[in-house]
């Protein structure tokens, strides 16, 4: 049973780092901001909620503030990483809404605490078999998708376009970091193809690392495997700096978040990344504004844009994709009820889809329904992982919507 005196005792005994985490759990004052859209942004009673896991299970510990109770007890040594505790820690897509809203007032950063406790669970040897497979995939294939390294180049061969350079051999100004999902998942190669077409159309001098590309490590950090994440980060930072490129572009929201915001956290250990790192929507938006990329055709379609959590709440890229969409003549953009920093997660992130596929799909279907209400024909996003899950949601809900990556829409008009 928790008592204040125990916490105070613990403060005396705990290492300084633990005290900082414990304080965060104590700062949580049960205001409930973490589970809702922010007050004045609440679009309706139906779309007031934000936490995908909480909205499925509904018991308190599945929301961030409830998880903070569990985390506190773990830090105090009153709980072990039992199956139930593991379930609670991992029923989180790490979408970041809890952190975003909490930090508007209380600053307890629940998502960071959850992430830290996952790291500790992993260090204690507690890993779901589904997550262990992700690690096995990396060890055996260099990616979590169990595809051979050579698969990373398959889309280039299929594309039959000239102009995509091998950055390992040729000096290029821009590295297109493809990422594992778009690189090796046969259903997602279209993102890599479309991205390359757009870059080629703009005359960008770019190359890829192909079979030598190393996973960014995002998924490993999300599931708590900090060691693997750091190992991959070290390799990538070193490689990026050796290449001598000016800019690293990625079309994967997960890779973008990891390289743009999480690698810099390791700068003291592995050094800073010298090239500028951007998501492709930022890069393309600049190209359009600088008149380096010409939109040659109209495209009379009605679209809605889904903000991926990774480049949305975690990086703050909200306007560039909208500016790109609005730059295409004929495209009509209608926002979903929850958008930008209050976008509802697709349900795929944080290792959630791997472990709780049914709930991830249920979450995607909720988001698809929200997209349908805009009257749009196309749901557009900028993340291969959202692509996978929302496409499945569209399919399972027999929605009339079609899913497209923004690069695909662009590739048709440049």
């Amino acid at each position, binding site marked *: 049973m928790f008592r204040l005196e125990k916490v105070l005792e613990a403060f005396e005994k705990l290492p300084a780092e633990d005290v900082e985490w414990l304080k965060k759990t104590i700062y949580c004052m049960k205001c*409930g901001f973490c589970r809702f859209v922010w007050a004045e942004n609440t679009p309706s009673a139906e779309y007031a909620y934000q936490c995908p896991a909480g909205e499925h299970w509904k018991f308190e510990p599945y929301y961030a503030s409830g998880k903070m109770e569990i985390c506190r007890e773990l830090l105090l040594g009153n709980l072990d990483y039992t199956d139930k505790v593991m379930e609670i820690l991992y029923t989180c897509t790490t979408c970041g809404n809890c952190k975003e809203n909490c930090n508007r007032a209380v600053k307890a950063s629940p998502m960071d605490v959850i992430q830290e406790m996952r790291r500790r669970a992993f260090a204690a040897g507690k890993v779901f078999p589904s997550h262990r497979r992700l690690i096995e995939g990396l060890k055996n294939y260099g990616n979590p998708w169990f595809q051979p390294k050579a698969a990373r180049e398959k889309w280039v061969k299929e594309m039959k376009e000239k102009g995509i350079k091998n950055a390992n051999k040729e000096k290029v100004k821009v590295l297109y970091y493809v990422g594992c999902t778009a690189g090796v998942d046969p259903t997602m190669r279209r993102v890599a193809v479309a991205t390359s077409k757009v870059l080629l159309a703009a005359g960008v001098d770019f190359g890829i690392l192909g079979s030598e590309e190393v996973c960014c490590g995002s998924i490993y950090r999300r599931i708590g495997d900090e060691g693997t994440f750091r190992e991959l980060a070290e390799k990538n930072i070193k490689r990026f700096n050796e290449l001598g490129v000016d800019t690293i572009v990625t079309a994967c929201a997960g890779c973008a978040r990891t390289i743009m915001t999480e690698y810099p956290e390791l700068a003291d250990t592995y050094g800073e990344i010298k090239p500028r790192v951007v998501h492709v929507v930022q890069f393309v938006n600049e190209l359009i504004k600088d008149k380096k990329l010409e939109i040659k055709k109209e495209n009379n379609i009605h679209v809605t844009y889904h903000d991926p959590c990774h480049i949305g709440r975690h990086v703050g890229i909200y306007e560039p994709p909208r500016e790109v969409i609005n730059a295409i003549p004929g495209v009509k953009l209608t926002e979903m009820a929850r958008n930008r920093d209050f976008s509802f997660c697709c349900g795929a992130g944080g290792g959630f889809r791997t472990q709780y596929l049914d709930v991830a799909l249920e979450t995607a279907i909720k988001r698809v329904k929200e997209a349908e209400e805009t009257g749009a024909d196309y749901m557009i996003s900028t993340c291969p992982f959202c692509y996978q899950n929302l496409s499945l949601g569209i399919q399972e809900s027999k929605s009339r919507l079609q899913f497209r990556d923004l690069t695909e829409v662009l590739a048709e008009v440049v």
Partner: protein
Amino acid sequence: MESIKGALERIVGPEWVSDDPVILLAYGRDITSLSTAIGGGFIPQRMPEFVVLPENTEQVSKIIRLANNHKIPIVPGTTAANVSSTSIPTQGGIRIDFKRMNKVLEIDEVDMRAKIQPCVTYAMLQSEAHKRGLQTFITAAPFTGTPVGNSIFCGIGRNQNQIGMAFQQIICVEMVLADGTVVRTGPNSDFLAKGAYFWHGPGPDLTYFPMYVHGGFGVVTEMDWKLHRFPEERQTMHIFFQNLGEVVGAHNELARSELPKGLAIAPAPYYGQRYADNWEAIERCVRAWPKYVLALNLEGTKRQVAYEKTVVEKVIKKYNGRLLDKLPSEAQERYLFTEDGATRGDYCAGTTCAWAVGATRQTGYFAIVGISEIQEITELYVEWSQKVDPEYTKGRGRWWLPIYIYTFNWGHCAYVELMNFSKPNPTKLQDFQEHVVRGGAAARACLNRGAYSLPLMVRDDGRIGSRMGVYYEKLREIKEIVDPNNILNPGMMLP
């Protein structure tokens, strides 16, 4: 014999019942158990034995009937944005988590009312009201709070000078009594009149039966709630004063004018704290800001607000107030943000910031006083604070928040929130509580086992009860009649 868990599962379905200790853990605490600073909190964490999530009133009725048959305590709770320990079980039992009952069932635009379930939040209701050119009462609690929970507890807000407190927004309720009976009050008590808009049922109205007793007399499952017209123009004004007599003078004159929709006095450092998100910013606010702030808001047509503003400005001038047109820069951004959200979130975010940044609410005291008593009570509190808590006079940190006054009901009375942020000393606080009551505050808070009140207001030795005399005894008798097994949130209202 079927287990309690089995019976609950039969009522709501197995996926909506839990007795897992890890699940229960998250139902045992709110800010009062351990608040934002390390030294805070005095309500120990206590877990229920079961958590159950019903979907409708029928299920709630069956759960309560089951609990009554087995003499198991029932503790209701909504979004868990609870700051008052009223959903922390005192004796285990069944925690009813209302999250599945979160629908705005109906909005009647003509009669300006909404029918809502317990887990509809203020933000949810406001978002629906806005679409129809209406607005709801805005709470000072977090926007994640619910009209049902907030009105049952206390519920103060920005417009209460003219529209009253949260409980005064209630038109009628549907509640489940201890034996599982479903009672509908007000217009809904008569099935022929269902949907009509009149204030009460036949005879004494039972609508307020569940109020201030935290589920102790009945569990609310539906509520008809007033909505108000969304104004053409809305202006919030902040006026600074250096002198208590002057701020109270201005306040009282404006209260009597019945012009401001909302009216409040706060020590300026407290107000500053709402807009500062770190200690350094608070310190700058304290240095930069005068002693008291009078906050008010005007709402209505543009012409009406323009006129009212001229009246307010005259009063400000008379009492040497300074209208704040620009906040200290460090607070500006936060201020603007909150102002922008005033129609929905209002200062709820500010309140929460204040609680979070400003350390903890060690303890506090709510009182309802007459307008004429504001200055007296304030001086009394300051005097007492200085006497028992030397740190208060230093004007630093957690000792910055001594008092907050909201005026309501057209200036007829004021809700005074007295907060003490020093280390709690029950004996001294007990003395203080009696000190304040003798000084003129009503004893309403005595019924309130809320966060800051339990050790003060309701004591097992019956000290408060004996002071309240017959009223307290009659409440106890009513409780024994309507809940003979004492299953409805036991220990919450009466010891």
